[in-house]
């Protein structure tokens, strides 16, 4: 492993993990709203959430670029107000990974929340628990398997994301060069050997992530 490769591995690890962490709170909220509430426009929000899965990644990337670019509505505002640039920095990688894995987290978690018996939530409330406490102590723990599955899928997707990332973050060694981008570059230039090396690294990272999630969920598994 060269120093550059280590840098790539490290960058990919923390940016993927951070992106999953960042989408967790909104992901949990959206999953709950979709699972437990009926509201007008629900199907639209659902479709909207699923979009990054349905559209080719370049298209998602292009949309993000248009939004976050210095001339885009969000990027422009950030630039004017805070002198912060998103596009072509690690922040853009973070956002691209988050957006691309969001649907996977939400769909898994939502399905799991739907399976939690409303009755248990009701019983918990007769015992004096507020809806908020019920959510944290009953709903979410009972949906933990789906949550774990969602997190694993989201993290895996973040590791593999390429199309949207390169569009919005470019390929900048050390700043935005995730494993996927580097593998792509090696494949493009015919450096199959280097590509293979990083491929193996990606596989090992996936293996570790799966293994951690297995171990965590096994610890409290009902027989």
């Amino acid at each position: 492993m060269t120093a550059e490769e280590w840098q790539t591995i490290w960058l990919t690890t923390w940016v993927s993990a951070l992106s999953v962490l960042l989408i967790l709170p909104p992901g949990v909220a959206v999953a709950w709203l979709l699972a437990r509430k009926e509201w007008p426009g629900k199907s639209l929000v659902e479709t909207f959430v699923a979009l990054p899965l349905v559209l080719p990644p370049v298209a998602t990337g292009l949309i993000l670029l248009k939004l976050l670019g210095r001339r885009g509505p969000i990027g422009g505002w950030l630039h004017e107000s805070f002198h912060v640039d998103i596009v072509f920095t690690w922040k853009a990688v973070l956002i691209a990974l988050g957006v691309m894995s969001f649907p996977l987290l939400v769909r898994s978690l939502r399905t799991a929340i739907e399976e939690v018996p409303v009755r248990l939530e009701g019983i918990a409330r007769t015992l004096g628990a507020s809806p908020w406490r019920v959510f944290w102590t009953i709903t979410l723990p009972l949906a933990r398997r789906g949550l774990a599955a969602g997190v694993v899928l989201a993290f895996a997707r973040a590791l593999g994301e390429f199309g949207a990332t390169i569009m919005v973050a470019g390929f900048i060694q050390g700043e935005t060069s995730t494993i996927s981008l580097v593998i792509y570059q090696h494949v493009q230039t015919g450096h199959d050997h280097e590509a293979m090396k990083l491929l193996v690294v990606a596989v090992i990272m996936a293996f570790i992530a799966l293994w951690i999630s297995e171990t965590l969920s096994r610890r409290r598994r009902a027989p």
Partner: protein
Amino acid sequence: QTPTLRVSAAASLADALKKIHGLYEKKTGGKIELNLGASSQLARQIEEGAPSDVFISADLAKMEGLEKKGLVNAATKENQLSNALVVVVPSDSKLQIAGGKTLAESSVAKIAFADPKAVPAGIYGKEWLTKLSLWDKIESKVIATENVRACLAAVESGNVDAGIVYKTDAAISKKVKIAFEVPASEGPVITYPMAALKSSTHADAAKAYLDFLDTPEAKAVFEKFGFVVLPEA
């Protein structure tokens, strides 16, 4: 009866080739299946045995790579098309680009390139600046993108000061303008080599197709889309 041909061609040729294929099909009655992609990806596909009759690359390197592997019918190879390299800036930019050296100045902080390691457009750009001994100063400012289109989009976004693309690509976007056209004398010779492939089962038809691209009506189309047609070597 003219057989169906599969043509693998660099994505930047998409519009021109679609038009030309219309003419070809009307004239010969043969059908063309056009496989569009990045030249590097097309080369990989051909290497791995994907069925293809003709390959049109956006640079010489990809074609040579296949030639070395003995996949190209060398007799049919010709370098007939060319393109020009341009520097684009956002259409409302006040930046004046007088040449390569402007790019090395501090007024230009970030430049988008189609990945200079892999994508032809970027490789040509790098060659040009290397020739001017400016590459070392510029390399750290480079934002590598997946392809020419992403390079344009990067300029459009306003997050880079300039970008290097083909002249034909610059026409795609209204949000960028050409700030500088690299003179043919200064830049590398951009060539789109084309050749029939050894694995082709329709060698004659492939040859006939390549000849058709040489006809004046085909050339007119290429020129209409901004390509430079090189004189027969």
